[in-house]
């Protein structure tokens, strides 16, 4: 709330500063909207802003008069200079703030869809403008809508289209989009004309052709509105793709129809003969298919281009947008269907550009696409609302408006049911009755219809304003009323919902099995069906399209299953880190106990999986103990845990001190427009890496020896411990011992003894450690604490009992269950165990001092 009020105030200030004559109304606009969102809080501010801005209004008029200057002005007021871009930017800001306010109230958007709320906000804003200017200065004009607002939305929907689903249902979608739209247009036009002839509308100057023109502009279901509503409802995927695909394609169809009828209207009744009608039909197909093919061509062009853009990674994503937009404009230029063009451009390029481009670029494309699409969608809805508040367009004709609403509703239902009835005869999985209801109810009209209505030529169509008015009413009726009732209806009819769970690996695998199985069954039954065709297409694509359009490197990792696997692994790794950080450090990750269970699970039955850890395995099995892992009692474990906890606290502090890199070259900021990570110092990265590796090795070593020597080396740690553990050293030591044993790697070890030999990679480093054992970092001389060897008797007992400490229940719990997916990786890491063996002599040296650990060390050898 505070945030929204803050925004409102900021906006008021901005608007006051702008002093635009028309914009003066913007101030109260915003505050009023805040008032609606937050009643009784901001009224004062709003009022103030209103008065302020109206006073500013007067000042504005003389603000931009350019008088001859007599002296050099220090600053001048140049409103006219910036007015247009300024107004655009402000309106964008206002629309988005409306969205912000709406989205801040989740309980409202639960009930009323966002699109409806945005339109309502538009009403309020429009009302305020009207109140200030007494004329509607801002409304959605078709040029802005079709050239600057619509393309990105369509491109985004095309780009994020679920291709398999879309093409799988393409037949049905085309039937709905083409035949359904033509049916809607024709039936509405004819019925209205019939009613007009019957005298239901009084005196109107509309002929049959005009009615058909009107029918065609209002026939199409609007993708923007449909997505806005259906997105929140989560219907099953088939239903979604049918509604969504239809809305997307029928926009193209409706624009084409509109143009044809517009031409017919221009020709006039007598000028239309059979030839013209046939030409109209041909033009319909040429325009629709031509647009689609142009889009495909552009899509392929983008794919080809992204194949070679790896050297200009920064502007790589922009190609997609520029070429997409060019596809739209080119189609417009050739008077082909621009909507279909940009749709198919997005659909055809998505796969290849996602594979070709750098991952960062792909994310950028996705994100920017959404930013544009969502942004302009918001603007469209707000302006649909604003456009309503205009006295000029409100020409009321009860008969015309109500009949239009009624016919739209009824013919949509008839159309959907009839077409589905036909389709169901041929569809493999028939569309269910309930789905048909939702489909017919989901016939939302939107901004495209309004844009087309605004395009009407007033000289040819006398009742243009009535048509605009009706179109707007239809839009409001469908978006607001049907939008609000959609959700309850879906619930009430128990429409099959989409499962919202994310795709698991096994599901993806099974999906693939299905694909192949269906093809095989079709082959066996000797039919050329859907799956057969898809298989053939896939083969063709594999062989030709990918070769031409995809980078060689990209072709490799394109397998779906592999991608899911990769993604899941990434997610695990992230969970892993998050889990570790929740506990203070990543220590638990390296906890040996965490993966013993996995090893045990698989070691016995599946020796091949453990190939990577043969070192460990042989060592373990030579002792013959691997199968009889005893478990530590719970109490004991608790104690251990406490110790671990404390140790971790200490270590974390120390770790931070150690690992936060103290910049040698401070503030050496470099700037590059073409690279991201110019400010990363190679040396720095290298050093951080080395330090980490060093620590890891050290902790491996120490843990394997059963003593946690290096920890005591640290001076920091000692200081901390002395403060924190007043009991004295012996408890401290024992605790530390526990920690070292149970928790395996307290990686805090100070890199003692490794400093000098610290190579850059773990394995060479291992060797160099053996060689350079004597070279020690003078900063940290390991003082071997004899006390460290003291083991509490109970633990010694446990030590004697068995080698690998089995994880108790609790230890199991500490490992989140999903993490187990990473287990194979960890297993291979265990081959490092050989380090421990290598270190054994060192352990022996301490034998006389530390009897119990020596036993442990002995086991390990």
């Amino acid at each position, binding site marked *: 709330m505070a945030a929204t009020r803050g925004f409102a105030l900021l906006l008021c200030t901005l608007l006051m500063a702008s002093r635009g004559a028309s914009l003066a109304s913007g101030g109260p606009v915003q505050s009023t909207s805040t008032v609606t969102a937050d009643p009784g809080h901001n009224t004062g501010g709003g009022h103030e802003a209103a008065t302020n801005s109206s006073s500013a209004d007067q000042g504005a008029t003389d603000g931009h008069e350019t008088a001859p200057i007599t002296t050099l002005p220090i600053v001048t007021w140049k409103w006219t200079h910036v007015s247009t871009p300024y107004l655009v930017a402000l309106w964008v800001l206002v629309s988005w703030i409306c969205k912000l306010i709406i989205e801040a109230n989740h309980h409202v958007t639960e009930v009323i869809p966002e699109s409806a709320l945005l339109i309502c906000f538009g009403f309020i804003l429009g009302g305020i403008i009207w109140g200030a200017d007494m004329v509607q200065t801002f409304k959605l004009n078709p040029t802005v809508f079709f050239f600057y607002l619509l393309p990105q939305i369509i491109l985004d929907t095309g780009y994020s289209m679920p291709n398999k689903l879309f093409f799988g249902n393409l037949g049905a979608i085309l039937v709905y989009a083409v035949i359904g739209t033509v049916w809607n247009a024709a039936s509405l036009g004819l019925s209205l004309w019939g009613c007009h002839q019957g005298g239901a509308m009084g005196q109107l100057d509309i002929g049959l052709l005009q009615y058909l023109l009107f029918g065609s502009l209002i026939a199409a279901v609007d993708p923007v509105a449909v997505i806005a509503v259906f997105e929140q409802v989560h219907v099953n995927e088939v239903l979604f793709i049918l509604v969504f695909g239809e809305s997307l394609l029928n926009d193209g169809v409706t624009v084409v129809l509109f143009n044809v009828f517009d031409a017919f209207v221009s020709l006039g009744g007598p000028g239309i003969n059979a030839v013209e009608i046939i030409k109209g039909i041909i033009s319909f197909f040429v325009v629709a298919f031509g647009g689609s093919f142009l889009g495909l061509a552009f899509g392929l062009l983008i794919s080809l281009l992204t194949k070679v853009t790896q050297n200009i990674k920064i502007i790589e994503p922009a190609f997609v947008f520029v070429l997409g937009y060019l596809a739209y404009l080119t189609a417009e230029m050739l008077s082909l269907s621009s909507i279909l063009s940009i749709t198919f451009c997005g659909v055809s390029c998505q796969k290849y550009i996602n594979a070709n481009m750098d991952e960062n670029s792909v994310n950028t494309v996705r994100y920017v696409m959404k930013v544009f699409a969502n942004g302009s969608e918001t603007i469209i809805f707000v302006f649909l609302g604003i456009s309503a508040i205009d006295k000029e367009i409100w020409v009321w004709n009860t008969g015309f408006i109500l009949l239009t609403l009624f016919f739209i509703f009824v013919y949509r239902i008839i159309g959907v049911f*009839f077409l589905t009835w036909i389709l169901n005869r041929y569809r*493999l999985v028939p569309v269910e009755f309930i789905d048909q209801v939702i489909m017919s109810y989901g016939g939302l009209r939107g901004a495209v219809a309004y844009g087309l209505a605004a395009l009407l030529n007033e000289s040819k169509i006398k009742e243009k304003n009535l048509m605009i008015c009706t179109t707007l009413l239809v839009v409001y009726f469908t978006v607001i009323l049907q939008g609000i009732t959609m959700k309850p209806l879906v619930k009430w009819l128990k429409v099959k919902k989409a499962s919202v769970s994310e795709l698991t690996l096994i599901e993806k695998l099974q999906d693939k*099995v299905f694909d192949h199985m269906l093809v095989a069954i079709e082959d066996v039954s000797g039919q050329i069906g859907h799956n057969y065709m898809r298989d053939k297409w896939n083969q063709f694509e594999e062989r030709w399209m990918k070769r031409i359009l995809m980078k060689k490197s990209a072709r490799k*990792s394109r397998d779906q299953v592999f991608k899911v696997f990769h993604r899941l692994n990434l997610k695990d790794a992230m969970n892993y880190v998050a889990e570790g950080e929740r506990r203070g450090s990543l220590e638990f990750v390296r906890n040996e106990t965490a993966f013993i269970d996995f090893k045990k699970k698989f070691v016995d039955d599946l020796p091949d999986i453990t190939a990577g850890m043969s070192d460990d395995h042989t060592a373990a099995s030579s002792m013959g103990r691997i199968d009889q892992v005893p478990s530590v009692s719970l109490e004991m474990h608790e104690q251990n845990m406490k110790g671990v906890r404390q140790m971790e606290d200490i270590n974390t502090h120390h770790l931070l001190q150690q690992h936060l890199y103290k910049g040698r070259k401070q503030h050496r900021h470099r700037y590059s427009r073409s690279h991201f990570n110019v400010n990363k110092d190679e040396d720095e990265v290298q050093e951080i890496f080395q330090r980490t590796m060093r620590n890891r090795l050290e902790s491996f070593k120490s843990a394997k020896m059963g003593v946690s020597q290096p920890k005591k080396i640290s001076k920091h740690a000692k200081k901390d411990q002395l403060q924190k553990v007043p009991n004295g050293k012996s408890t401290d030591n024992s605790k530390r011992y526990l920690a070292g044993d149970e928790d395996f790697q307290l990686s805090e070890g100070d890199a003692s003894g490794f400093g000098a030999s610290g190579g850059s990679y773990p394995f060479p480093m291992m060797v160099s450690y053996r060689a350079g054992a004597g070279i020690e970092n003078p900063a940290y001389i390991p003082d071997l604490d004899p006390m460290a060897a003291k083991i509490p008797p109970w633990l010694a007992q446990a030590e004697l009992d068995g080698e690998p400490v089995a994880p108790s229940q609790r230890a199991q719990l500490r490992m989140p269950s999903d993490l187990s997916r990473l287990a194979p990786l960890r297993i291979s890491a265990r081959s490092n165990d050989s380090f421990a063996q290598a270190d054994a002599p060192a352990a022996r040296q301490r034998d006389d001092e530390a009897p119990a650990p020596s036993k442990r060390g002995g086991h390990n050898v």
Partner: protein
Amino acid sequence: MPNSSVRVQRARARSVRGSRTGRAGGAAAAAMGASQTRSEHRHQDLADRTGFSLEQIKNLHRRFQQLSGDEETISKENLESIPALANNPIRKQIIGAFFDKRNQNRDEVGSCEQIGFEQFLMVMSHFRPPSLKTTAEEKEAMRREKLRFLFNMHDTDNDGTITLVEYRKVVEELLSKSGAIEEETAKAIADAAMLEVASTNVPAMGPDDFYEGITFEHFEQILKGLEMETRMHIRFLDVDTTTMRCGKFTS
């Protein structure tokens, strides 16, 4: 409608085979007529049991004879020689499923060497699409049946669980055609998938537990989210329109 010559030929083939006579009642009818009615009856019988329409059965039967070379049974080699199948990575498993006794709705295990048309049809019937008339329970049953089929396909040793070894084989075969993925990766993927099943179904696994394999229940559980309705159907030619008609058409 198939022309009568095909029908005659088929009828003859069947009478040679000496198949069940069905309920052919036309003793007085001409020999050809009788066998024709008999085949109709037989088909009707099969249609009742598998849910296929007569037209579909006729079509499938034609295909069956084409595959078997007018024999009354079909062998693995017959299926393997289908050229279109050559590129299918899981060809072996699918062909195996045809000869798997578990898929014949009987309580037997193991696989047979040869199958007749009836068995062929039985396997095919797993891929029948639902119609609008199918009720929710029937759909659920169909879904289960399909899952069972899939499960049986993976469970190559008939022991009721898909073990890791078995599943790995599936994944390896599945990915074998994509070329770029190495065997190791396939293994890792299979392992990860297995762990996924394990972690979903046995959330609190004890330290000594060993997840021995996917049982059918677990299999069902993990694939719950998968929309089978759109995934395991194929269109059989000459779909009888009576089963597909939208009965609730209203407007």
